[in-house]
Structures are given as structure tokens and as C-alpha cells.
């Protein structure tokens, strides 16, 4: 068994292989993971919107030992990741980290947000530091406005 604690280091090896195959291969995999994650998120997000997203990431914050601040406003949800355990483990690793490791996160969350009619603004800030800021809006115009403040804006397959 690869322990669940070490999953991200396994994930990192999968990403390195897929990156060598090409960008489309990597994106196809993110979509597969996104479908997998729908089991945990889709109904909750559809039924409860931003409040459901808050519930999901609050659970993740605890279970994955994240240093994460969540701020729920009437028109958006902000996730401020102060220390990301996923990238932290990949960097604390005897195997080489994949340079674009952070990209997978928007790669699976973005397609789910598109499906439930919300707009994701994913600012990774710096791929070498385990921190990021994510904002989710119902209003597309507000999301487009927020994108202007991003340092390193993430994209995903089929972004709407």
C-alpha cells in the first residue's frame, strides 16, 4: 500500500510521466480525477452553492491538515492556503518534484465549477511555494475583475 499520507508523492510521479507524453495527456488525467472528485462534491455544490463549497473545503482543511483560511461572503468564497500540505510533501521528497505540480488543482476543480455554474479564480502565486489563493464567484463579471489581481492565474481544460 502506498499510504494515503504519501499519495501526493505518487501523484507527482504520475504527473512527471504524463508531462513527458504531452499537455493533452496531463489534462485528460486531470479530467479523470475531476470525475472522481464529483462523487464528493457535485451534488453538494449544486444543492448548497457557496455554502456547500465551504462545507467541503472545511472538511478537507481538517482531514488533510491544511493551514487554510476560508472566508464565505454573500457573493464569493475565498480559500487562502497558507501552507499547502500537498505541495509541501512533494517538495519534501527524495524524488524530484514536478515543476508544474500546482496546476493539477485548478485542473480538477475548474471543470466541476464549470459544471455547477460557478467561476473559479485560481491564483497559485508561485509554483515553488506551498501557498495559493482561490476565489469562487457566482457572477462571471466579478470573477473576470478578480482575475486582474492574480499573480499566476491557473487555467484548466474547457475553461468557460
Amino acid at each position, binding site marked *: 500500500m502506498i499510504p*494515503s*499520507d504519501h499519495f501526493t508523492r*505518487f501523484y507527482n*510521479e504520475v504527473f512527471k510521466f504524463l508531462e513527458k507524453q504531452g499537455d493533452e495527456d496531463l489534462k485528460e488525467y486531470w479530467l479523470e480525477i475531476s470525475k472522481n472528485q464529483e462523487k*464528493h462534491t457535485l451534488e453538494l455544490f449544486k444543492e448548497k452553492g457557496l455554502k456547500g463549497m465551504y462545507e467541503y473545503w472545511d472538511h478537507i482543511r481538517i482531514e488533510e491538515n491544511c493551514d487554510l483560511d476560508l472566508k464565505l461572503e454573500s457573493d464569493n468564497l475565498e480559500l487562502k492556503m497558507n501552507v499547502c500540505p500537498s505541495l509541501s510533501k512533494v517538495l519534501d*521528497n527524495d524524488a524530484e518534484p514536478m515543476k508544474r505540480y500546482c496546476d493539477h488543482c485548478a485542473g480538477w476543480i475548474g471543470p466541476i465549477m464549470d459544471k455547477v455554474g460557478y467561476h473559479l479564480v485560481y491564483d497559485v502565486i508561485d509554483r515553488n511555494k506551498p501557498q495559493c489563493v482561490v476565489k469562487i464567484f457566482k457572477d462571471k463579471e466579478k470573477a473576470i475583475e478578480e482575475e486582474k489581481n492574480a499573480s499566476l492565474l491557473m487555467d484548466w481544460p474547457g475553461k468557460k
Partner: protein
Amino acid sequence: MNKINPNSLRYKDQGNVHMDFHGATNTTIDFIIKKYGIETMNDIFKKVGEGVYADIKKNINEGNINMLAEHWKHFFDREGADYSISVKEDEIVLTVKRCTAYEHVRKLVGNVSPHFCDQTIKTNEAIAEGTPYKITTEILDEGSCKQIIRKRI
């Protein structure tokens, strides 16, 4: 055999455990095998064994097989598995009676990939490859296995 302090483990995670990662591992195994074939999946597990677990491999190569026992105990305890372990001078036998990773995936998706346990078999093989020891993994039943490290003859 050298005594190993559990604190000397290269990765010694604490805090909560996110078992849903095993579901993503299951999805990944099916995805990679379907698109690229089983040899590719095995190559990735080999890289995990050689790279991620380089420190365990180094210790085994130097005869410190107890490092692997500490690794097994640490993570099977964290995941609440039902197992027993017998540690001797040049042999360790880990018997997993109830693998909580396997159980969790079955609960999440119903059908566990027929190659789910390859992550154990192939990663173990890669950790031992090129060392004086061999690790064998025998699947006893669904979610149950025996992993043995012993000197190569």
C-alpha cells in the same frame, strides 16, 4: 539487526488521515493501465519505490531492514489496518488481515481495480531491487496479504 527509532523515518506524517486519496489512487491505476498499459503503471510504481522510498532502500541495502518494519507499522497504524508483524534478524513478515485502503475504495466506488494491490507488489519489488534482500507480496484474499522481506539466496 540495528534498532531503528521511528523518529528516524524519512516521512513520518502526523495529524489526520485522508483515506479518500486511496480512491484517487484506484482511479489513477485504471486510467494509466487503460491508456498506456500495465507496464507503464508498473514503471511508475518502480519510480515510487526507487525515488520516493530511496531512504528505505538505502537502509535495506545496508542491512537495516527494520526501517521497513517501522515504516509499515507507522502507516498501517495511522490507517487503522488489522495486521500483525513478526520481526527476526534477517526476515520480517507482515500479515495484513484487513487492509483499510482496499476497504475504503470498495466503499467509495464498489469495484476495486483488479490491479489495486500492484501498488504494494511493484513498489516493494523496486525498494528491494539491487539490495541483498527480496520483498515478496502474496495476496491472500480481497484486502488481505502477506509481505515478506528476507535475504536473497
